[in-house]
């Protein structure tokens, strides 16, 4: 098949390659050029790009020659122009025999702010009964920028417990079934068996839609937990904005002097009452807003205005699960942390995240996908903990200091990876990672594969 070209096409091609200047030539009418070489056909059958380029180049060259002849016949000084373009033919690039030496360097990012250090728990010397305290915050650079400054404190994991049995995903429930009727035993298990740094006791039974336990009565669970474990604790309400102020007030009184984290104050409730109880009984307050940095600043300011000290405030900017808005939680936290490091005094507080929310993702707990377009989701006992791990870990990368979690394996994994990123886990530097290319599996993986991935 011969390729038909119009002169205007050719001028464009020539322009592009800068072979010759044709601007002053006016060609009347259209001249058809018949190229005997069939570039299109050859290209179709050509097996390599190089071959194609050569054939195309040959074609273009032929066009150029035809045009040069036309130009010459019109009296244009073709030779001079050609000399100008072609004569100083670039010598072929000399082969490079040695690597160019180079040194990688990059400057430091400058930050002026410092995150407030907040200490949780009080030992006997400070009027409490905890056997140690835990401090978070103190960062001066973005999370895990250990090449600029060390991370002052590890990420703290506090594991959720409740003052009554509640509905939990199967993968979570199996770890707590035996202790769900006893908050003290529950707390003991998460500390002694699962190595939690802290325990959160949620007074969920106070919810008017559940048991509507009166505030005073609910504090019994707080006392049981304080008796059962000696780590610092978090006290949560039921999330009911009408009732929580009274519940948290009573709980703060019952735990007076223990420097608990009181969770939480929110703009849509009587946060003043919670703040006052927190101050009076020597606790730390959790300032909770919903994915909104401006609200977070507002609530923090209100709480400080009520007399909460800067070292007694932690923020919860809201956690959304992987696949269900995690990117909003991530960016909200990242913005808050960077604003703080750039000096926004309303936001220089440690950040806590309700990572247990990850279990709200259906991928974490459903047996299989309800959606026909999906390929299999695989066994949920593998998916669920991973959803919690990733949700928590991503927020640590954004700037979180404290993780409220549930699944023991998830809690352990987030702890381990964040400790590693802080440089607190020895080893891992001598692995011959380049050998991944020739990595071969041992036989156990095949068996595992059959169990988990191999069937559909």
């Amino acid at each position: 098949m011969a390729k038909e070209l119009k002169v205007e096409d050719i001028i464009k091609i020539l322009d592009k390659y800068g072979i010759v200047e044709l601007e002053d030539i006016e060609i009347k009418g259209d001249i058809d050029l018949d190229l005997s070489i069939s570039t299109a056909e050859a290209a179709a059958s050509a097996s390599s790009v190089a071959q194609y380029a050569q054939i195309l180049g040959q074609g273009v060259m032929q066009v150029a020659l035809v045009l040069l002849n036309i130009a010459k016949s019109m009296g244009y000084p073709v030779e001079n122009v050609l000399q100008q373009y072609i004569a100083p033919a670039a010598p072929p690039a000399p082969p490079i025999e040695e690597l160019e030496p180079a040194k990688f360097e990059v400057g430091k990012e400058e930050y002026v702010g410092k995150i407030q250090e907040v200490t949780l728990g009080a030992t006997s010397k400070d009027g409490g009964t905890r056997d140690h305290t835990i401090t978070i915050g103190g960062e001066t650079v973005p999370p895990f920028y250990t090449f600029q400054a060390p991370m002052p404190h590890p990420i703290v994991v506090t594991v959720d417990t409740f003052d009554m049995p509640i509905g939990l995903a199967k993968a979570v429930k199996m770890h707590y079934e035996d202790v769900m009727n006893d908050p003290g035993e529950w707390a003991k298990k998460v500390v002694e068996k699962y190595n939690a740094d802290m325990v959160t006791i949620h007074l969920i039974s106070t919810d008017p839609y559940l048991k509507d336990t009166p505030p005073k009565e609910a504090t019994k669970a707080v006392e049981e937990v304080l008796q059962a474990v000696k780590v610092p604790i978090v006290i949560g309400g039921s999330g009911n904005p009408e009732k929580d102020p009274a519940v948290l007030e009573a709980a703060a009184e019952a735990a007076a002097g223990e420097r608990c984290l009181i969770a939480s104050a929110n703009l849509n409730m009587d946060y003043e009452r919670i703040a006052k109880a927190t101050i009076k009984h020597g606790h730390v307050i959790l300032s909770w807003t919903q994915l909104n940095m401006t609200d977070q600043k507002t609530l923090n300011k209100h709480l400080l205005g009520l007399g909460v000290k800067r070292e007694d405030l932690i923020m919860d900017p809201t956690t959304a699960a992987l696949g269900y808005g995690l990117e909003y939680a991530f960016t909200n936290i990242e913005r808050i942390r960077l604003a703080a490091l750039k000096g926004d005094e309303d936001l220089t507080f440690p950040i806590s995240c309700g990572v247990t929310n990850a279990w709200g993702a259906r991928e974490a707990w459903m047996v299989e996908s309800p959606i026909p377009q999906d390929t299999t989701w695989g066994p949920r006992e593998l998916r669920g903990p991973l959803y919690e791990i990733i949700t928590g870990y991503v927020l640590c990368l954004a700037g979180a200091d404290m993780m409220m979690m549930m699944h023991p394996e998830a809690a352990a994994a987030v702890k381990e990876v964040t400790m590693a990123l802080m440089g607190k886990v020895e080893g891992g530097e001598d692995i011959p990672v380049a050998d991944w290319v020739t990595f071969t599996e041992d036989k156990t993986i095949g068996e595992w594969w059959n169990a988990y991935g191999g069937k559909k």
Partner: protein
Amino acid sequence: MKAKSPMDIYKLLPRTNCGECGENTCMAFAAKVMDRSLKIEACKPLVEEEKYKKTYEELKELTRPEIREVEIGVGDRKVVIGGQDVMRRHDLTFYNKCALFYDVWDTLDDKELEFRVKWITSWGKFYVGRVLTVDGIAVRSVSKDKEKFAECVKKVSEMAPDWPLILCSYEPSVLEGGLEVVGDKNPLVYAATKDNWREVAKLMDKYPVPLTLSAPNNLDMLKSLAVTFLKRGKEDLVLDPGTYPTGKGLQKTLSNFIRLRQAGILEGQREVAFPLMAIPMTAWMVYDDPKEASYWEAINATTFIVRYGDIMIQHSLAPHNIGTSVILDFNIYTDPRRPVAVEPGLRVIGNPNEESPLFITSNFALTYYTVESDISNSGIDCWLLVIDTDGLGVEAGVAGGQFSPDRIKDAFEKFEVEKKVKQKYKTLILPGLAARLSGDTEDATGWKVLVGCKDSGMIPRWMEDYWPPRE
């Protein structure tokens, strides 16, 4: 990009307001180029007219993303990686999501190879109105045998003809074997190192395909390789600073990724402003227990999806690995400037009649698409009232007051629910997570309220138990 405002771009445009780009004015076009929704090439006079040749070059330089874009593969499945302009997604957005590749190798028997390729290419998950997939296949030469590798690459490319490939070996002759088969399909070559770079460079002269440079935990060497290849005119490069999956190795790896990106974006160091490759599958070299290995592979993938990995190679095809990586990748690379909410309104699903239910949900995009697809897929005829929750999900909206009886009442009036939903029970169904609003919602709307399930995936089962409502 170097341009700091649309004015920087506008100054160099033809300023004729010709409209050929689809925008009314050159200023509007400049704004679109600035926010990267249009490329400078969309200005036809600029590209075509000789007199703009110089300014076109200037504009190209001015609007070039800080991190170079590299294409892998050809055709519809071609992936583009790199192209970042910012360190943080909220500073603008991240472009070209991290490309997720999964491995096969040349010592697999035919059955296993076929299984892996099929699994990789058929994996899919419905999410926010579309089906997500993975991006490509990495073929490793375990045998180090040219013929064997070529044969494996051939089989893969026959089973997955449109899929982008990475050819992985440190042996130039082995790589050549692969390139002889798929050299015309623009595969990514892995890798040139301090030991083989001369031979690989020669190979690149013959096959102009994108190339990975690898120097584990040695940024000086990585830069040295990049400078050398740039000097030879090779620009479609990907950098592999090594992925150490645990302990201090992981700490160092994250530092390397962050610092390379700082150099590229904050300091405009063009010699290292290339897409970065992470290889989470190195976790399999550390852990013997497959579950632990798969979790640590996922943890490494998470690290480098969030922090500056532009392409990665993973090993576990278990659904929990693929699923979490694909969703996280999609989430992190979602444009934060894009609205998160859908339009409130009364949606009609199927052909509802006087016995059909009326469901209420929020206008958070993720919630809406999930609920809508669950209902549609189970073939339930109904009405779905999407109320304005300022784009919050049900749980957050209930806590914050954006999912409230008042908002439901507003929606009832605005979308004429009384008039349009001719249902004989006069009963609406609240999401299970909004159970506490049921009394007030009955008062506000005058309709009876049933509390539905907590997850819309359970709606079919819920319908069996609770619908039609009992008197």
